[in-house]
Structures are given as structure tokens and as C-alpha cells.
């Protein structure tokens, strides 16, 4: 039996919820960043499923752009984390609560 659109959307929503849980619960900057990636991928799954079940390729083109932008975003974000770690010697958000460097 072929899976339906709502099944795919349910998986995407669950993946997004897990990513959001990671952002809320975890205190390590790198893990928070990985959870952000999970949330982006949840959006990708939803877009591809919509594109498939509506017979339109525009959703997949959108996912292509999202993957590109996510790659750029990851490189800049990780560079920021490394720069922050050089200054403060920590990657834990509890220790990064002040604006002052």
C-alpha cells in the first residue's frame, strides 16, 4: 500500500518536533545547531511530499535551494562557533548568557 500525503506530513512534523526539543533542551551549541538542521530537513520532507502529491516540481526546486542555503548557513554558523570558542573557551549556552565577550 502506498503511503499517503498525510503520513509523510506526520513524519515531517514529528521530525520538526524532535529538532525543536533539541533546541529547547540541550545546552551544547553544536547539538543545538544539529537540531536546527533536523528542523530544516523536516521542512524539506514536507515540501517534497507536497510536490509529489500535487504533480508539480516547484517544491523540489525549493528544496534544492534550501539545501544550498543550509550548506552556506552551516559553514558560517560553525565559523562563528569556533570564533566564540576561541574567545570564551566554552560551547555551552549557560556560560554564554552575557552580551559582553
Amino acid at each position: 500500500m502506498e503511503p499517503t500525503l498525510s503520513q509523510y506530513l506526520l513524519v515531517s512534523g514529528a521530525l520538526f518536533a524532535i529538532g525543536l526539543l533539541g533546541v529547547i533542551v540541550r545546552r551544547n551549541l553544536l547539538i543545538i545547531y544539529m537540531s536546527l538542521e533536523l528542523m530544516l530537513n523536516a521542512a524539506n520532507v514536507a515540501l517534497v511530499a507536497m510536490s509529489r502529491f500535487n504533480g508539480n516540481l516547484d517544491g523540489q526546486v525549493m528544496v534544492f535551494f534550501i539545501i544550498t542555503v543550509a550548506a552556506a548557513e552551516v559553514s558560517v554558523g560553525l565559523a562563528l562557533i569556533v570564533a566564540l570558542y576561541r574567545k570564551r573557551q566554552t560551547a555551552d549556552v549557560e556560560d554564554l548568557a552575557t552580551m559582553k565577550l
Partner: protein
Amino acid sequence: MEGTLFNIFAGLTLLSALLVVANPFSRNPVTSALFLVTTMISISGLFVLLGAYFLAAVQILVYAGAVMVLFLFVIMLLDLREAARRKLNLVNLVMGIMAVSALFLVYKSSLESTYGEAPQQHEVAADTGQAEAKAVGSTRALGQALFSAENGFILPFEIVSILLLVAMVGVILLSRKEPR
């Protein structure tokens, strides 16, 4: 067959995503990164089931390849062994699970009210539309959708290439040692 594969890939995606976020056996960021690779690979399995073959390949190349290598480099560059020993705050954990599951239930019920009432009708419409249009994301079809002259995405494509250049220059600037 397709339903079985969907169950396998969806289950694997959600299980390994959960292990990225909250692994009961290990608090090491490297473990999380490796489970993120598993998540990406099973998501690309879902893409194959949806007929998005090119995106499945790109997902593995970009995410499981480039992005995860970057993550592992940074994890090993920063010495995070001290951070690995910290315990989760229990209050945070309970509040987070409550908030997220409430959000997920809202999403699920809105999904059911959209698709649950007349699933037959909707699915028949989707199936016939699919049979006519066959939205299969092969490399050729996706390239034609991306670069077609009248309703293509040529300008966004060029803007994204500039964005990548800016990101590259920005990363070099950020990771440069500051002159003292």
C-alpha cells in the same frame, strides 16, 4: 512494498533523530553527529520513495558528506570533553517535552481535520493528478524546471551562487586570527 519501505525509513529517521537530540547512552557530540548522518541517509531514502531521485543524491552528497565533515571537524577542533559530562536539567527536559508535544498535537489535529474527513476523495484526486503529471524529480526534469526560460528559477539560482561566495568570504574572515 512501498508501505514497508516507508515504515522502515520513517522509523529510522525518527529514531536516529531522537538519538541525535537525547541519547541515553552517550553525551558525546561525536555520537550525535554520527546519528545525524543516519538521519540524513534515511531522509534521502524517503526522497527516493517520493520520486525525488536527484534530491536524494544531493541530500547524501551535501548533508551526509560536506556538512557532516564540517561538523566533525569543528567538534574535534573544539575540545568538548568537559561539556560532555554535564547533566541535563530535569526541569528543562520536562518543560521542553511538554511544550513540544503540545505543539505536535496541534499540528497532528490540524492535519487530521484537513485530510482526515474525506481521505478517499483527496487521494483519488492526488492519484489521478500524479498519473497525469508524474512529478518524478529525475535530474533531467528538475533541471528543466530550474532553468526553463519562461517560469524557471534562473535569477534565484544566480543569487544563491552569490550567497555561497559571500558565505565563503565571510567564513574566511571569521576564522582568521585577530591581529594583536
